[in-house]
């Protein structure tokens, strides 16, 4: 991650913030708008950040994963199902059922990671195909079970839509959330907080540990890694499984942290945006995080502008159309990526199965 990217991304996020603050400042205190924008940005970027981290672990070890979307969708469904079952059938309290849901989501993500690794590393099938298989399978399995369990008369919940235990509560972190005014930024739900922590941990693991060095070496030059005694198969397996677990956590965000319900296809392409963020950030955790924050900021802008619709000055009337505001992050990404920053460089051995 070069400093040029950081500076540009910082400028763009600031620009989006400034636009909203300028529009809303006559009605709401600028600091309050800033804090609200910041908090929303962090929150909505969560699944993208986690998805991008999943991609980073997989690809830095040399395995392409376009199945992030399917991993997220499956774990969103099974995590939610587990939390509902724990709450209504096994009679657990709200918080333990929600945590069960998160755990199951992570496990399902990890299992799909195993599946992906078996296909790509052991059977050496085309990694794009393996990812596509996961994506289609996820749509089928979640759609099928969703209908079968909840809407069929003989289904598990007797044709009635089950009562969900709700969403994870916001955390109070002493020393952070107690800061006057700005403390609100850190009043996040647990998965959002863990996503941020995971960015730092992943950066550390990939760059400063033996594990990270080995991961990168099997992703760049598996033959050389093998020659010095690194087990390529094992490293790839574990990294894809870790990636799967992280994608599972992203899935839990949708149904256990954001809204307490599941609907078919609810991930809505965010796995692919994570993929884009990963490439944008040049396969580094901080870079990818910065990229997801651009998406987060744009979405926060879209949400906040809804409140200030009446205040938008006529020369900016185009911002009243939320679809136009919705275009911003995608066009920005294309512009930044090609015009200013140039090429991203993938790990050298990514996508290639290792033949001994």
């Amino acid at each position: 991650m070069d400093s040029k990217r950081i500076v540009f991304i910082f400028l763009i996020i600031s620009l989006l913030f400034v636009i909203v603050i300028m529009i809303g400042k006559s009605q709401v205190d600028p600091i309050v708008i800033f804090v609200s924008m910041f908090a929303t940005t962090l929150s909505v970027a969560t699944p993208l950040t986690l998805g991008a981290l999943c991609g980073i672990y997989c690809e830095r070890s040399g395995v392409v994963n376009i199945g992030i979307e399917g991993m997220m969708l499956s774990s969103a469904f099974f995590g939610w199902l587990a939390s509902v079952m724990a709450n209504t059938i096994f009679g657990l309290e709200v918080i333990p059922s929600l945590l069960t849901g998160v755990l199951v989501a992570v496990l399902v993500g990890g299992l799909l990671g195993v599946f992906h690794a078996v296909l790509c590393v052991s059977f050496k099938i085309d990694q794009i195909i393996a990812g596509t298989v996961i994506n289609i399978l996820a749509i089928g399995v979640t759609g099928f079970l969703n209908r079968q369990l909840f809407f069929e008369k003989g289904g598990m919940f007797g044709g009635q839509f089950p009562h969900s235990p709700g969403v994870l509560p916001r955390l109070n972190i002493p020393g952070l959330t107690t800061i006057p005014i700005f403390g609100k930024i850190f009043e996040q739900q647990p998965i959002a907080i863990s996503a941020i922590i995971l960015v730092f941990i992943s950066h550390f693991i990939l760059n400063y540990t033996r594990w990270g060095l080995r991961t990168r070496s099997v992703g760049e030059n598996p033959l050389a890694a093998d020659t010095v005694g690194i087990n390529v198969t094992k490293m790839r397996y574990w990294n894809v499984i870790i990636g799967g677990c992280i994608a599972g956590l992203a899935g839990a965000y949708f149904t256990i942290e954001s809204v307490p319900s599941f609907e078919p296809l609810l991930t809505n392409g965010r796995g692919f945006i994570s993929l884009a963020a990963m490439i944008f950030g040049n396969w580094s955790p901080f870079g990818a995080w910065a990229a997801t924050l651009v998406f987060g900021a744009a979405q926060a802008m879209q949400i906040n502008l809804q409140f200030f619709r009446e205040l938008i000055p006529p020369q900016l009337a185009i911002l009243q159309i939320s679809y136009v505001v919705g275009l911003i992050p995608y066009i920005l990404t294309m512009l930044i990526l090609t015009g200013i920053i140039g090429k991203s460089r993938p790990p050298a051995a990514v996508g290639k199965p290792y033949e001994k």
Partner: protein
Amino acid sequence: MEKDGPKRNFQIPEFLKEFLVPILAVFTAIIVGGIVILIVGGDPIAAYRGLFEGSFGSIRALSETTVWATPYIFAGLAVALAFNGGLFNIGAEGQLAFGAVAASWAGYALPALLGTSIPKIIHLPLSIIAGVLAGFIWGGIPGWLKAKFGGNEVINTIMMNYVALNLTSFLLNGPMKDPSPTNVIARTPEAAESAQLIPIFQGYRFHWGFILAVIIVFITYWILYKTTFGFEIRTVGTNPNAGRYAGINSSKITFLTLAISGALAGLAGAIEVTALNFRHELGFSVGYGFDAIAIALLGRNNPIGVFIAAILFGAMKNGATRMQFLTQIPVDIISIIQALILLFVAADAIVRFIYRIHKKEEKASVS
């Protein structure tokens, strides 16, 4: 390797072997899918009978299968062509949507714009060309960014998908919304009669678009394997450096590959508008990009293979409704079976292992 050869007790002709593994893969997927149906308490035989009846069981079913398959053929070809050039086009959905928007705009707005009705022989091709052109541009932008700046086409086609999504939402809810008083949904007005393809047989939805699709399959095949341009696409796809040494302008080829890929997806949208719906409706294009990738991969990026895969996917989509009606098994089971088919076709190692088919010995003897 060579030792394993004589163990086989019967010989299969070489040309059949090419097809044997994919056929066995589909067969295995159907068996595994049947087991899944059995586990959830359904009757697999009845389900598959319903699926078959609904897709091939009658003239009407056959006609509907071609209707479903037509956009799949175009979109699958789009992704396959890009793959041949070493490019991953995830943006077929956006290209298709924009092609449909452009074709329906040409269909309803052109006569009003010119203040006169346009003869069908001009208006209809114009409408289709508008869709193709929109797709060409939508695929061409990521292609240009890749050729000129090295911008990653995976990111840019995904981004163009969302740009298309937001833009069509805006257009179909605003300037292009069907103004008729009964309309409450986001859709364009109906295209003028002169921009509508007439049905081939009265009472059936089977349309010329399918025949065009078949022609385009052969043209794409011909271009890819019989022309210099196709050779250049495939060379750049397998090894851009070798292409450069051979004097191929790889930037130009990259741009053209993605742009034509987009044009094919745009054609899918244009045909849906001119031959079937006569207008574009929001949400219509959802899922085509996904399916197109699967179809291209299933067809091994070969136009003929894509055609067969598209028919298979179209048939399953079409037959699924009848299956659900007859057996109450949710249509979503189709996606599971499709994923299994793709898995087994791709992982021919698994299929070969199950059926004890050995790989051709050529490879072993060469080394």
